């Protein structure tokens, strides 16, 4: 067993995610587009936007993970790369985790880093808290990508798998969405919410790779 296939999978996925010429700009464009629709849809009242802003960014992150993950394993299953990963001798769970991490780096992390700017557009006060929120978005979106990866691996051989991924992954997004939203409001129980958010992300990182590995073995059959 060697770690080389894991790095190769990571590089391949990062390359795929950056391909198309736009790099991280593409997911940022997606987030911007999704966020701009909101004031148009619900009206431009400042107080309302301030209240819904953090939640809109969570929703946009969840959607971004679903959109970018649709093809992550499907293309590998189609062009035979999946069989090579499976025969490489490296743990399949580690390869799946590396590929998911690469997609998070290319699409999830830029969105989180971009979030303070969007928060300002949603009338949030400019304060260091926005940077803390950016870190929380980064943390939570990692869980979105890992659970989304389970959905992507399960539907790797399914045509039009994108809709299926959403249905499979959305219930798994729940704890992250709840803890994430709690961490940014002063509601009851918000004291420990960032820790719970971190815990649910760690849980996703611990469980999802094994589920992805089992699903990828199924896809290769």
């Amino acid at each position, binding site marked *: 067993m060697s770690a080389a296939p894991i790095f190769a999978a990571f590089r391949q996925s990062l390359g795929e995610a950056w391909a198309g010429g736009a790099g991280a700009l593409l997911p940022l464009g997606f987030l911007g587009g999704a966020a701009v629709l909101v004031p148009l849809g619900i009206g431009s009242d400042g107080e309302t936007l301030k209240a819904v802003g953090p939640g809109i960014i969570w929703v946009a992150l969840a959607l971004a993970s679903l959109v970018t993950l649709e093809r992550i394993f499907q293309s590998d299953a189609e062009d035979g790369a999946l069989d090579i990963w499976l025969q490489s001798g490296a743990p399949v769970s580690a390869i799946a985790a590396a590929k998911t991490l690469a997609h998070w780096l290319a699409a999830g992390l830029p969105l989180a880093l971009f979030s303070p700017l969007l928060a300002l557009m949603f009338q949030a006060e400019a304060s260091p808290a926005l940077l803390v929120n950016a870190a929380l978005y980064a943390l939570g979106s990692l869980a979105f990508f890992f659970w989304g990866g389970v959905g992507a691996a399960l539907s790797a051989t*399914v045509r039009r798998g994108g809709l299926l991924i959403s*249905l499979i992954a*959305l*219930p798994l997004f729940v704890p992250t969405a709840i803890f994430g939203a709690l961490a940014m409001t002063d509601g009851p129980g918000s004291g420990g919410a960032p820790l719970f958010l971190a815990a649910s992300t760690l849980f996703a990182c611990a469980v999802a790779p094994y*589920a992805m590995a089992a699903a990828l073995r199924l896809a290769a*059959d």
Partner: protein
Amino acid sequence: MWSYFANPHKFLRLSDWLAPLFYALGAACIAYGLWQGLWVVPKDEVQGGDIMRVMFLHVPAAWLAMASYSALAVASFIWFIWRHELADIAAKAIAPLGAIWTALCLATGSIWGKPTWGTWWQWDDARMMSVLFLFFLFLGYMALRAAMDTRQKAARAGAILAMVGALNVPLIKFSVDLFTSLHQDASVITADGPKMAAVYLTPLMISALGHSLLFGGLVMTRMRTEIRERRIARLHAAALEGA
């Protein structure tokens, strides 16, 4: 131990008399529970007057929503480890029934909530939400199975998803404690024993037992149908080979 139950012939023989027995006992229990609940027990003004009688449907449905997902996860686990076909047949049979009882729980909850709390649906009530997500887990499970092109793949993919979902259920449930909740606190299963007056509790328990028996009977019938469908498919395949 599982291997003893994993034999389809033994299952067909067992369910041949057990399923009708479950139906009969279940019907009797549900009828008793409804009669007690709708006509006999006194109404509780705190819980909205006569509308609280929907409890005798709502609580058994909530119990079955959770129990059926647990059963789905256990069946998936058994199939995934030991590959007993009967466990997969059971998982396939449980999913739509579980989804129906979960939907029933949500619907009766809304009907109860409107006059008592003044709203059909409360987003910051985590208990409502966790049942809703249980419903989505069932839907995702059925959609995934339906999307797979062979029976073996459907079984494997479904088992993986059901187990991942089961691992997440405690986490989803845990979030309940972090919210202030409109929903009344647990009153049947608490650390100090039931907090509910016996006049309500007894018919409620019998009603829950009745729904469980009905559920068990329906699962067995669906499993029998599936076993026979697979047998027919095999006979067709054999006939085609011979022709």
